[in-house]
């Protein structure tokens, strides 16, 4: 990241849940990212998400609003008029869709999901997290989801994907609610290749990325590489 750039961080703030319930991104991680962007000289750091439950409840209970503001970010709510229609000529099923201007226009777009069990994508990770900056009737994306989610990711590529796996939701995702479904893994995965990042994270849930349709689709269409043996990867264990 260069000095004077604008940053948009898109954590998962979708649900009216506490951090311990692992439905939203860990607020301290979001705050750290904000802090480091500011230290690197960012002109402006904005944090937002298009929530599923009522926005103010989610922003508050997740702890992300307070933590981000404290670290110096602008925390904003979604304004309907700021969605811009983006055409996706290479889309197989989705040819155009509204995307949030702030994400399209930011110099640096950091996608920060939390890893959770999800019935339609198996695990919700970076690709699914993009649904938080799209407009329109998101329910329509769930039909033929595996193809459509790749179409959407063609329109915007994050500068960096950071997957929060400090706590993950193993069951009853993505909204959760039962602490027994939460597992503490204490892992963070970051990368510029969104497919590789998601593929690695699938492994945390004992899922072979080769079995996940959207990863296969994305690799075929050149969005990244899901075969981790072909990816330059570094694993750091801080406990060692």
């Amino acid at each position, binding site marked *: 990241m260069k000095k004077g750039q604008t940053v948009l961080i898109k954590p998962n703030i979708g649900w*009216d849940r506490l951090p311990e319930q692992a439905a939203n991104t860990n607020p301290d991680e979001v705050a750290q990212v904000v802090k480091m962007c500011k230290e690197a000289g960012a002109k402006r750091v904005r944090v937002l998400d298009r929530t599923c*439950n009522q926005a*103010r409840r989610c922003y508050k209970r997740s702890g992300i609003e307070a933590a981000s503001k404290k670290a110096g970010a602008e925390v904003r709510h979604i304004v309907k008029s700021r969605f811009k229609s983006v055409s996706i000529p290479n889309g197989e099923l989705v040819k155009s869709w509204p995307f949030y201007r702030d994400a399209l226009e930011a110099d640096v777009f950091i996608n920060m999901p939390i890893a959770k069990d999800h*019935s*339609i994508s198996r695990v919700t990770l970076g690709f699914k997290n993009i649904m938080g900056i799209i407009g329109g009737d998101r*329910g329509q994306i*769930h*039909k033929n989801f595996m193809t459509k989610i790749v179409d959407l990711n063609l329109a915007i590529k994050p500068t960096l994907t950071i997957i929060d796996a400090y706590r993950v939701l193993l069951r009853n995702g993505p*909204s959760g609610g039962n602490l027994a479904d939460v597992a503490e893994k204490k892992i963070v995965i970051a990368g510029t290749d969104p497919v590789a990042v998601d593929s690695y994270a699938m492994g945390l849930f004992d899922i072979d990325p080769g079995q996940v349709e959207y990863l296969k689709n994305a690799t075929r269409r050149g969005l990244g590489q899901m075969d981790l043996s072909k990816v330059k990867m570094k694993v750091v264990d801080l406990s060692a």
Partner: protein
Amino acid sequence: MRTARRISQIFFLLLFLFLFFQARYPYETWLPSDLFLRASPLVAIATILATRKVIASVLIAFIILLLTVPLGRFFCGWICPLGTIIDGSDNLMKRKKRKPRQRESTRFRSWKFAILAAVLVASLFSVQFIWFFDPIALLTRTMTTVLYPVFSFLLLGLFNFSFSTGLFEDQVYSAYDMAQNTILPIAQPMFFEAVLISLVFIGILSLGMVTRRFWCRNLCPLGALLGLFSKFRLTKRYVNETCNSCSICQRECKMNAIEDDYAVNNTVECIECMECVSNCKPHSVSYKFGKNIGKNEIDLSKRRFIQAAAVGLAGVAIAKTSAVSREETGLAIRPPGAVKEDDFLDRCIRCQECVRICATTGGCLQPSFLQSGWEGIWTPVAVPRLGYCEYNCNLCGQVCPTGAIQNLVMEKKQKLKMGIAYFDKSRCIPWYSQQDCLVCEEHCPTPDKAIKFDIREARTPEGTMRTVKFPYVDEELCIGCGICVTKCPVIGKAGIFVTNARAERIEV
């Protein structure tokens, strides 16, 4: 004194508006938003009569009633926000010019006592209609469903216009954010029954074209009730010898309470607005504590009373014999914490406070039409297609002034069934087209999701076999919050719906 009254009126109107704006998520307050509703003695008495229980939250009203005995109808003149609004709108209207010394007619004055009688008789027979006539409930209802949405519409329109011009973007964005946390709603509020409710309000204000304070003089049963209690008030109007019989006081009297003998006023009608004091040129008029020298007849003949009681009883009979309430459509989904239906219909004053506060969070509550019969008109029901009951919210119970919705602790509310969801298998995507959807399951808030899957092979319309996740509702876990219905992506009627089956109601 008139200035003091005006200041008091404006203060209480602003307080009313403040409490109204305050009734929104996150609702962290020290002054309850339903304060005015609880303070209306009419609501208190009618509700207690209908339910035959003493409801603690309305005891504030009895303080007002007790104070009326020595002080008269000060509530009408100094406090009532509807009175203040009527005063304001009356000033904007032209009325027929009167000949000098021609007093306005007192013909309709008995109607408010008749209405009071009718409504109280109906309450005795367990049908509560007071909500239609109570000025505070009426005003709150109109503000929630009509005035605030219009205000928001205009203000949001202004903001959207600013956004579209692209000028001063950052500042407008910040201002918009601030406004959304205070006076603006999160989303444009829209309610059913708004047109009917607005007609009532517009009707009342339009009566100002006939005389000033037409509602207060002739229709308001709260005014009638307070009038009854102020028969023997201690604050009296005195006219001394400097009076030159110019008749200006009679003309300026908002309640037409001054008799043709200008020294005599009707203590049952007088609201102590002090207009006569301020308008009297020789300063002959004053208000002091003293002996009773005014007229204090209650304008209600025995005949009128019997007529009114008959109307009240007829209303009861008609409401209770209409088949509309008998047809079990299951659409009367009550807010979580609602008391048993009979009790609910007696207690609910249709003030729409619950509707108002719900609209700032999940947004499922709407004024009903006939979903619960004629007796239930304008009571709150959940309309899941428009909004859902937020899992972590129990605000409706916190703002209900009469306890029609009990204030539940969060753990209890999260387990309480409002109803049950059912799949409409002719519309639900997996069921009719063998494709995966699962938006409902995704949003189901119960920690152990109430929507589960039956994963099996199915033949698609094209003839191939596919593994499909067929959703079904676990009735034991489902609490009927309706988020599945709200988020269902089927165009038009959803693939899932909620009825009030197995709804758990509170016994008090």
